[in-house]
């Protein structure tokens, strides 16, 4: 609110409205680039996927096909919205809204640089964890309200899958926050200052692997995209959706993936901090974006190369492999933190 331009523009407003307008401006400053980035990430995703399958990928709309996502979005916007006859109308339309808005509100606590954060919550990690655990509701509501067997099966699978992988994500977060001694995301980043060597990816490597894989499962990303498994369930919970309702699911899904990339960067790759001191001239937000793009590439790479999991193997991986390892890691890293005098 101390910004000179802002003062010049809105000084005539009462104090209370000024702070509201300022918050709205800050939210816009995060959301608009985010949604634009999602549009280009979809293009990026499809290009990587195509390159790994020796295809060209989208290359018609705009230079190098860069405008493909906008063309797709526009097409979805102008399509007719179909509602199945037996659908529960209210919930049917609330579901995509829930998915999309939950995907957006999580970004409030992501720190983009030292002090550059919309809401510097003391419980930032818990907030992110809470919001990502709510993601399952959009899918469950969509699956149930569609009144279709495929959609319902997809929703049930998704609920079971997300609840299972949340447990190991939770333990990874606990291990990291015990090490840092704070639930504040900025503190987590500051605890990794001092270049590449102090990033948690080295000291917490097993946790990093578990987090990355669980993040893929949590966002229903291939190879864990069982909820939509087009070969068995047509498209799972999205079967009955058309037009912008489908578009919102699609946007929400990619925003969530991006959020998980941001979380991986913040928890294990030093967030906004440069890897080497001589690269400090590049601003913090840009570093975070570079790291997010790197993890998005890994997500796309895995999607292009790994075949889909079988459902029982997915559950086995979550409960019998990740859960014991991450539970042990909490004890081990907690003990190490105590022995090193960090707590």
């Amino acid at each position, binding site marked *: 609110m101390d910004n000179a331009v802002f003062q010049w523009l809105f000084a005539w407003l009462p104090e209370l409205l000024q702070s509201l307008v300022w918050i709205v401006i800050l939210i816009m400053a995060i959301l608009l680039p985010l949604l634009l980035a999602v549009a280009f990430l979809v293009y990026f995703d499809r290009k990587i996927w195509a390159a790994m399958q020796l295809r060209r990928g989208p290359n018609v709309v705009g230079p190098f096909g860069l405008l493909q996502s906008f063309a797709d979005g526009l097409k979805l916007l102008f399509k007719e919205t179909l509602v199945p006859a037996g659908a529960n109308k209210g919930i049917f339309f609330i579901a995509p809204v829930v998915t999309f808005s939950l995907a957006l509100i999580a970004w409030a606590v992501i720190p983009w640089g030292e002090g550059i954060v919309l809401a510097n919550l003391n419980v930032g990690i818990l907030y992110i964890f*809470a919001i990502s655990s709510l993601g399952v*509701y959009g899918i469950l509501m969509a699956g*149930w309200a569609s009144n279709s067997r495929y959609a319902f099966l997809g929703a*049930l699978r998704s609920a079971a899958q997300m*609840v299972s992988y949340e447990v190991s994500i939770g333990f990874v977060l606990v291990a990291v926050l015990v090490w840092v001694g704070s639930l504040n995301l900025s503190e987590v980043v500051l605890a990794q200052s001092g270049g590449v060597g102090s990033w948690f990816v080295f000291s917490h490597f097993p946790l990093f692997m578990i987090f990355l894989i669980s993040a893929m499962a949590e966002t229903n990303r291939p190879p864990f995209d069982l909820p939509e498994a087009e070969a068995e369930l047509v498209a799972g919970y999205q079967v009955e959706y058309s037009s912008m309702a489908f578009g919102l699911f699609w946007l929400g899904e990619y925003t969530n993936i991006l959020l998980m990339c941001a979380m991986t960067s913040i928890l294990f790759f030093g967030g906004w901090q440069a890897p080497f001191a001589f690269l400090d001239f590049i601003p913090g937000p840009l570093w975070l974006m570079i790291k997010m793009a790197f993890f998005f590439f890994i997500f796309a790479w895995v999607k292009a190369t790994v075949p889909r999991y079988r459902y*029982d193997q997915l559950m*086995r991986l979550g409960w019998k492999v990740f859960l014991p390892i991450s539970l042990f890691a909490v004890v081990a890293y907690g003990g190490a933190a105590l022995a090193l005098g960090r707590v």
Partner: protein
Amino acid sequence: MIAALAFYMFAGLAIFAGLMVVVSRNPVHSVLFLILAFFNAAGLFVLLGAEFLAMILIIVYVGAVAVLFLFVVMMLDIDFSELRQGFQQYLPLGGLVGMIVLGELLLVLASGLGRPEMVRIPGSGAVRIAQDVENTAAMGQVLFTDYIYLFQAAGMILLVSMIGAIVLAHRTRPGVKKQIIADQVARTPAESIELIKVETGKGVKM
């Protein structure tokens, strides 16, 4: 003023959602309203400055418990008209239980137990919370120093109930074919793949 507005919004929505849980015709709607009620309760916790409790409420109740509720209710094959038949029959008893709970709550409030400085368990010392500590840390200190035995006891009760549920639901089914992952992973190409040169028109003996 914003805090007051937020309080009335959260409180009003919580009461509305609570009411809708009871009067909704469709059980799935009831569960969804229950989730809305949890959310507003979390909002009230945030207003009280107990952000840790708010987040835990959302993670545990909304993120896990209510998902399982919804999961089960969605899968039940419920006849809605049949479900509502007993409504008038159970109304007096249910109303009585509700009135008793309300009376108890009022009694607690009237006796001043609701005030923060009165919160302690008989037999243990009064709770010491430094003012400048953030509430996650304060909560940890209270839970793991003053109330560690009660905390552990709660954990044991949960463990016992979990084991109980598994014992009740578990049954051994003989003759089920299961994949043994270790065996599968231990296989090598040398012992599982054989290259055979097939001569035209002859076929292969396996």
